[in-house]
């Protein structure tokens, strides 16, 4: 199928660029990718930074496609729709919108929380996957040893947070400016950004993230997920967090 092949090539190209210029590419939310349709609001859906089957070791290509092209796209569209009549907010970055939910007009607060949160979470999610698992190294591994009891204990605790989030939500590792790590679970599309914090990484445990392959077996999904974590990307996020340049 030519269309699929073309899109795949584009994603692979984007993936190559991602390794070199992650902070700018992934986090510049207002910049529309050249191939995207004209934006109907301040935010656009970033293309997946790799092919749909890049995470096959944990997530099937069909799930990736629906998750990105339909679920994530809906969050972006709904966020733009919520902001359409509020042009005074269009210059705000996503992380600032989410950190100031309480100051937004009441009529759009829930929509920005749900859809802005969904947009930020999924953008981060694509960015920390596409890898081959393994282990982090260097400064990041040292921080995991120091704050989370080592890599093995960290994974167990993170899986537990993901598995016990009742209903829809996320498990996160949060990171401070000082590089301190902690595990957090959040319902729905809430994110540490809503407390002015930052997520180093996060795993989506809405059922749409795993139902086609794992059905009710969420723990199998959260265990397999490590196979596709891109620790190079996560290390770049860690460095960015300490430099104060991690945005979402």
């Amino acid at each position, binding site marked *: 199928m030519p269309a699929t092949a073309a899109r795949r090539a584009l994603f692979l190209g984007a993936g190559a660029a991602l390794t070199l210029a992650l902070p700018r590419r992934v986090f510049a939310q207002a910049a529309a990718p050249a191939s995207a349709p004209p934006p109907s609001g301040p935010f656009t859906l970033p293309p997946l930074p790799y092919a749909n089957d890049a995470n096959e070791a944990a997530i099937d290509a069909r799930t990736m496609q629906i998750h990105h092209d339909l679920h994530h796209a809906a969050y972006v569209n709904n966020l733009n729709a919520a902001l359409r009549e509020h042009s005074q907010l269009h210059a705000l970055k996503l992380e600032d919108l989410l950190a100031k939910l309480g100051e937004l007009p009441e009529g759009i607060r829930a929509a920005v929380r749900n859809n802005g949160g969904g947009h930020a979470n999924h953008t981060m999610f694509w960015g920390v996957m596409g890898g081959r698992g393994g282990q982090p190294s260097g400064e990041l591994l040292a921080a995991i040893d120091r704050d989370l009891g080592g890599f093995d204990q960290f994974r167990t605790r993170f899986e537990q947070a993901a598995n016990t989030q009742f209903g829809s939500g996320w498990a996160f590792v949060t990171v401070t400016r000082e590089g301190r790590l902690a595990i957090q679970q959040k319902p729905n599309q809430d994110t540490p950004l809503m407390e002015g914090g930052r997520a180093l990484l996060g795993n989506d445990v*809405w059922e749409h993230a795993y*139902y086609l392959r794992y059905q009710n077996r969420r723990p199998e999904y959260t265990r397999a997920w490590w196979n596709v974590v891109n620790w190079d990307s996560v290390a770049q996020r860690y460095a960015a967090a300490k430099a104060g340049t991690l945005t979402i």
Partner: protein
Amino acid sequence: MAFSLPPLPYSTNALAGQGMCQETLELHHGKHHNAYVVALNGLIESKGLQGKSLETIVAEAGKAGADGLPVLNQAGQHWNHILFWQVMSPKGGGDKLPGGLAAKIDQDLGGLAQFKEAFKQAGVTQFGSGWAWLIIAPDGKLKVTKTPNGANPISTGEGTPILGVDVWEHAYYLDFRNVRPNYLDNFLNKLVDWEVVETLLKQGGLKSEQSA
């Protein structure tokens, strides 16, 4: 006595022609609902639930707020799914409602079309996991409402459900993927057994007959 998973009132392939495939029902009843029952039974002793009816447990857990959530998640979901299986049937669907129910919906909710629209809206706008409901409110009037996760109108004190639809993604992902509005249309137009809803209206709601 412990809680138990009631058998489906129809076979797992009985609704396949009405938009709910066999695999959905096998998983939803045999895995998801069953897991809530097993988890709830595991809480009976530690939470001191012995001898209480499922309805009492749900109401008390709801009143307890955040502290009640571990029990509410499982007990609410047990109750919710018991109702859900009852209100669907292979004979379901259509717009011919029994007289008493039709008149009550006309009187309290502005007619069947308006009710369906309100019910669908409640389901579409329940962000994340949860349920949409048709309830008998304390003033005796019918009302449409929604609740997140495992909560229900008994736990919130809003009233007594006579119809409920599960909008957790597991309820519709195999049949409708991300398109929740189509699942809700299908539920209202093809799956609801209005005779059962009328019976529940007359009885003043579902009695689960389950207790710890």
